[in-house]
């Protein structure tokens, strides 16, 4: 027994050690990854972010260097007081600030670099650079920021900002402090613009000091620069549109029907994209974000779902023809409205009875109520008719996401039988329950971009391309989904009478006062009732002014939708703006300066204040115009090169 104590102990200890080793190295050990090894420092090399150009090659977004003053607190030497005062003066901070910043950097880490002053101006940097050697422990780090070459298109171009934790968790590419597109094309073309960052693996010791490249750099990679992109926006048209929309709220979307390229994408109110660059980014962003009244970050061209109003009537005319329930010469009488049961849908004074042409250009509610009823009632049950109607409407890109390359969007709404079955129960509703759909009110909702796309489809006589913003990527094809023709369910021959009707809107109808000489514009006015809630009570506001149009009549080069919130009737604000946009795009110069002057001297700010005034207010016809001093048109917008010769 005595002989075995030591032997036994040795073997026992040996087995315990083997067990412990097994536990540490095999059982609880994760597979080794160089990226997770905290003995290896990963130094990232950020590539240049791609530039953004407009369709005519005008540079919109570039990069600019920015200089951060960094500090490694442990290495900071005592600076004598005159030098210290000079240093503080150079970087524009007080002596107390200096001490506060230094000690907070020290608390973060004495050994690791912290940002002392971010975004030094170029001038400060130049002066400071000369004197840097005097201040040990401080150094200047260069970063790249976006540089906007324009003050327009904030909603189009978007901005970049630091990644948040959620993104880091979902995408291992990003690390804390990396920049990522937050809105606009910066977001939707993030992967193209950012390139691929390079990585260097550096062996470090336990004091975090670098002691040379890991394995002589065999795992290191070089950065791949971001690609430049050209977007479909026409910067001149975009700027002009933003000018016209000043002091108004709403959106303008202009599309080239032959390609689906978005020519202009205006959301008002907007802001200067330069606000979201540099030292004041977060302050400015917070201010924009918190503005819950004007909502400048809300893209009204893409995200706002409005009742489409009268322009939607053109679709009902097309569906009626396609379904064979009406001909162009069928006439319906209208005596200031359409009666059904004991109810009435109002209309305005015009000639009666109306055929299709008159129905469109006078925008007769009664005419379209009849057309709509014939479409739905063609089938045995309203449910069946409703679904047929709904499919026709949806073929124009309404009622669902467009699946384009814009960072935001809304599906809009197109009702189907299911919608009403849910609301009323199966077989418990009839066509007249849904009669508002005839005139684009009711359950239909659409975003301006969907309306513009609808106008493009009508201008194309039956097809459209998904509206998109990418025109060209350096060394790459644009995605196939944007070059595929999407056909509507309406046959080509049914379009001519409708197009003619829209043409007559300008000739002799609701928009005859906003004609542009020399351009054959087809359009349709719209006026949409809308409501808000004030203290829980439903209150009607002044109607939205809506206009959709395309021009020229044959082979249209531009199709657009204009929504002006609370602008009252269609041609009052939206119609004028649409005409000006079309003339600007097609001719470059404006002949109807009277329209331009009117738009630039009329504001809707008073209108927007009403619901917040706390007092009773009047709407629509009982309102007064708010006339302001004319906003000057910048010289470069007056005589630009016409985009279309």
């Amino acid at each position: 027994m005595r002989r075995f104590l030591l032997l036994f102990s040795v073997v026992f200890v040996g087995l315990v050690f083997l067990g412990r080793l097994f536990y540490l190295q095999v059982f609880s050990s994760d597979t080794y990854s160089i990226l997770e090894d905290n003995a290896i420092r990963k130094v990232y090399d950020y590539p240049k972010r791609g530039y953004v150009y407009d369709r005519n090659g005008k540079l919109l977004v570039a990069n600019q260097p920015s200089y951060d003053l960094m500090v490694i607190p442990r290495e900071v030497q005592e600076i004598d007081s005159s030098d210290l005062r000079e240093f503080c003066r150079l970087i524009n901070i007080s002596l107390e600030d200096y001490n506060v910043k230094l000690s907070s950097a020290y608390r973060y880490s004495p050994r690791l670099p912290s940002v002392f002053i971010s975004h030094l101006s170029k001038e400060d940097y130049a002066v400071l650079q000369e004197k840097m050697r005097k201040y040990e422990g401080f150094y200047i780090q260069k970063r790249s920021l976006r540089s906007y070459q324009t003050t327009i298109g904030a909603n189009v171009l978007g901005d970049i900002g630091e990644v948040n934790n959620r993104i880091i968790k979902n995408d291992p590419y990003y690390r804390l402090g990396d920049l990522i597109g937050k809105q606009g094309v910066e977001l939707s073309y993030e992967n193209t613009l950012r390139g691929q960052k390079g990585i260097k693996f550096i062996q470090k010791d336990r004091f975090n000091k670098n002691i040379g490249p890991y394995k002589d750099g065999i795992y290191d990679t070089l950065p791949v620069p971001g690609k430049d992109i050209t977007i479909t926006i026409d910067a001149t048209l975009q700027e002009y549109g933003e000018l016209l929309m000043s002091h108004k709220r709403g959106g303008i979307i202009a599309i080239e029907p032959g390609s689906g390229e978005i020519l202009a994408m205006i959301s008002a109110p907007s802001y200067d994209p330069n606000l979201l660059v540099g030292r004041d980014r977060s302050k400015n962003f917070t201010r924009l974000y918190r503005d819950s009244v004007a909502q400048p970050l809300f893209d009204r061209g893409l995200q706002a779902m409005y009742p489409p109003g009268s322009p939607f009537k053109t679709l009902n005319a097309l569906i009626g023809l396609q379904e064979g329930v009406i001909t162009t010469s069928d006439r319906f009488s209208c005596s200031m409205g359409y009666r059904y049961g004991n109810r009435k849908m109002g209309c305005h004074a015009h000639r009666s009875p109306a055929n299709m042409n008159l129905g469109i250009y006078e925008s007769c509610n009664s005419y379209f109520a009849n057309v709509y009823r014939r479409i739905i009632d063609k089938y045995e049950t309203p449910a069946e008719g409703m679904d047929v109607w709904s499919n026709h409407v949806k073929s124009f890109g309404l009622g669902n996401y467009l699946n384009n390359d814009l960072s935001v969007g809304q599906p809009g709404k197109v009702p189907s039988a299911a919608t009403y079955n849910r609301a009323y129960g199966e077989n418990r509703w009839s066509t007249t329950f849904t009669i508002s759909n005839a005139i684009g009110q009711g359950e239909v909702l659409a975003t301006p971009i969907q309306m513009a796309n609808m106008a493009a489809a009508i201008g194309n006589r039956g097809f459209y391309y998904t509206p998109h913003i990418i025109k060209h990527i350096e060394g790459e094809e644009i995605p196939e989904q944007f070059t595929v023709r999407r056909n509507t369910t309406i046959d080509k021959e049914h379009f001519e009478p409708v197009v003619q009707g829209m043409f007559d809107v300008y000739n002799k109808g609701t928009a005859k006062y906003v004609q542009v000489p020399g351009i054959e514009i087809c359009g349709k006015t719209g006026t949409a009732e809308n409501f808000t809630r004030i203290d829980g009570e439903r209150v009607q506001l002044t109607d939205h002014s809506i206009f959709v149009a395309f021009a020229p009549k044959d082979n249209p080069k531009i199709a657009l939708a204009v929504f002006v919130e609370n602008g009252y009737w269609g041609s009052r604000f939206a119609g004028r703006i649409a005409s000006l946009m079309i003339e600007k795009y097609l001719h470059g110069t404006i002949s109807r300066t009277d329209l331009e002057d009117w738009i630039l001297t009329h504001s809707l700010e008073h209108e927007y204040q009403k619901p917040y005034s706390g007092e009773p207010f009047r709407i629509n016809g009982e309102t007064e115009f708010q006339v302001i001093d004319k906003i000057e048109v910048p010289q470069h917008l007056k005589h630009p090169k016409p985009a279309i010769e």
Partner: protein
Amino acid sequence: MNRQLDRSYRFDWPLILLYLVLVLFGWLNILSASHSGEISSYFDLTQPYGKQAVFIILAVVLIAITLSLEAKFYERFASIIYLLSILSLLGLFLFGKNVNGATSWYGFGSITIQPSEFAKFATGLAVAKYISDLETDLSTVKDQLRTIAIVLLPAVLILLQNDAGSTLVYGAFFFVLYREGIQQIYLIAILAIAMIGILTLKFGITITMVSLVILTIVVNLYLRKRKPPVIPSIVLLLISFVLSFGISFFYTSVLKPHQQDRISLWLRLEKDPDKIEQMKQTILYNLNESEKAISSGGLTGKGFLEGTRTTGKFVPEQHTDYIFSTVGEEWGFVGSALVVVLFVLLIARIVVLAESQKSQFSRVYGYCVASIFFVHFLINVGMVMGLIPTVGIPLPFFSYGGSALWGFTILLFVFIKLDSNKINEW
């Protein structure tokens, strides 16, 4: 000539082979743990690995000297060697050089010598000599005390030089005494004290005492004696109480805070996660880094000179006390398990050889050697893997350091010499 050759063949070659493998593998790990990028020469004397290479060559010279001396020399001069060793330890109080708080070194220019590394071998010889004396009877308390005095003298001197780790090694001699016939009660007492100590620290005095009382009653009931040994039981319990109280007092009032922390971490007494996290950054830092390095090695390791944590010098003192973490990181489970097995084989081989000795002196000395290696192995590897509270002692043949290497080499080869001579002992 022929006779000499015969004799040389009686050296235990497996043991010598184990020694060589351990020393060379140890040096490779020192190279890995101490190089800083470029390796210009393996004998670069500005670097630990270069120095260690020189130490190893000098160790070969020492081996030659050790083996060439007559086996009888060690038995005959054991007392004098012991005396010289004690003198060298005493001399430290006058001429010692202070390194990291311990006054354990003599400095000759850039060379330092640590006499405590040689004192183990000297004490082993002295203990063997005393026990093998025909007049010594280890079953008597007197001779037990004298033997213990021989062991304690160098141990106390080393403790006074503030090298608590090396002092603990002298506990190894218990295995020797036990083998040579001290009463069983000592083993039982040591185990009992260890148990009471751990119970007291982990659960407190009250719970320890209550459980001991219950244990006593159960044992008495189980024995079913007509007259239960009431008085001895009560005496034992009283002794236990005093022990428990004493250990508790020792822990709270005698130990320094950093020693308390080590024990409290080992016994998992600290429950506050913040405190533990803070400890990981301070006193637990070495252990934490060493465990991470070992764990990161995985099954097959990152490869020689490829350990990122080793190259980055994340584990402080890695080429000395924490050398085993280099093995763990670069050679993985396969390599570190091999090292454990090699040590077990080495120690077991020594024990087996010791048992086969015909002279008591050789046997006792062999036991001394085996026990000392065992305690070093147990404490060092156990500590590096976090099984034992942090105690700074080297891993034989692996850790960087000339004195330690030479001390262990002499310790082992004196036994090999004695073993080779057993044929002549009748």
